[in-house]
């Protein structure tokens, strides 16, 4: 899948962008459940985009469904790497050179809960979704 683009080392100071669907925004912040892995095998990981090859706006536009609504958060790579057992791996796709997986357990056991808790402490909005999520009372 990644033959088209070389796999690069991602510096600590760079950013990772990630979409957050409006259903998962409560009280103006993403819920802890958004920090989870997708895919299987080698492709398993939390999908993000590396700031060297993507802007937050481009990440937002990569939503497959046209009806998608939500915001884009950013995380500093250094902060992600400080979370236990989380690694940042550039995994470019033919149509997305920026694609990066954050690998490592994010669920089950105390460790999974700890990991998601720590993710909740390192994100910032790049593109804030105006309005609360569909699951919230204000929606």
């Amino acid at each position, binding site marked *: 899948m990644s033959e088209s683009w070389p796999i690069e080392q991602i510096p600590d100071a760079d950013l990772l962008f990630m979409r957050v669907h409006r259903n998962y925004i409560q009280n103006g912040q993403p*819920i*802890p459940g958004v920090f989870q892995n*997708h895919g299987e095998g080698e492709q398993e990981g939390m999908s993000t985009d590396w700031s060297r090859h993507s802007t937050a706006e481009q990440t937002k536009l990569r939503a497959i469904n046209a009806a998608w609504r939500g915001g884009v958060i950013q995380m500093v790579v250094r902060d992600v790497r400080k979370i236990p057992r989380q690694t940042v791996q550039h995994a470019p796709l033919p149509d997305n050179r920026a694609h990066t997986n954050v690998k490592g357990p994010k669920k089950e056991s105390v460790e999974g809960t700890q990991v998601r808790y720590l993710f909740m402490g390192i994100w910032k909005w790049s593109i804030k979704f105006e309005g609360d999520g569909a699951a919230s009372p204000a929606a």
Partner: protein
Amino acid sequence: MEDLGTNTGWSDCMPHREVRPVGFAVSHLEEDWPKGLAKAQDIGRLAAELAELRELVVETFSDIRRTLSQREQPRLRERKTKRTSQAASQRVLPFLPAELAPISEAIQRSKTIINRPQDPSDELGLTCSHETWQRGIRILTAHAFSVWQNARVVIRPPVISAGPDGSVDLYWTAEPYGLLLNVPADPTQPATYFGDDATNPDSNRTSGKLNSSKLINPGVLTWLAHTAEQ
């Protein structure tokens, strides 16, 4: 004629009431009266008897309804107040005092995560079952009530959301303290938690599993007291 006022089949199930028959008590032989007149008198008496019986039935049913409503007063009251959010929460949280209304409201709002319908634009599809949600709510209310009961302190309402694999997350933040408690979909698995103090995260933190046999965890309890409204 059958005596309608005593032990007929349908009246067995009704409260006993002495009914005095009003028709046909006096013998009226056809030979004593012209046929038409006798029939008219019978019809008149029958009508009067039916009217009295009707009144009796109405009165009896009225008594039954009154008795039943007195017996079922608590259930009927609950129905009347079910529409308010606080009353609906009370069905899950019978012990929460009025001071914990913010917790009740957060619980009420969180019901949207139960069996959330699939949204085609949503790649994660996070949702949970009613059972898992209820388990999470029990843990939340037990801790909120315990802190209230022991310290007269009201904890902050958490963000109640669906977590991975059908689990439920309870997330508190009250700078510099925070806590995430995850309730797995599998009821045999214990809930897990992690929290820290952002000013001293390496040495001041709490984590662990909730003992399934005990609803309240002292570590969680202490941490939640930190998140109380100041």
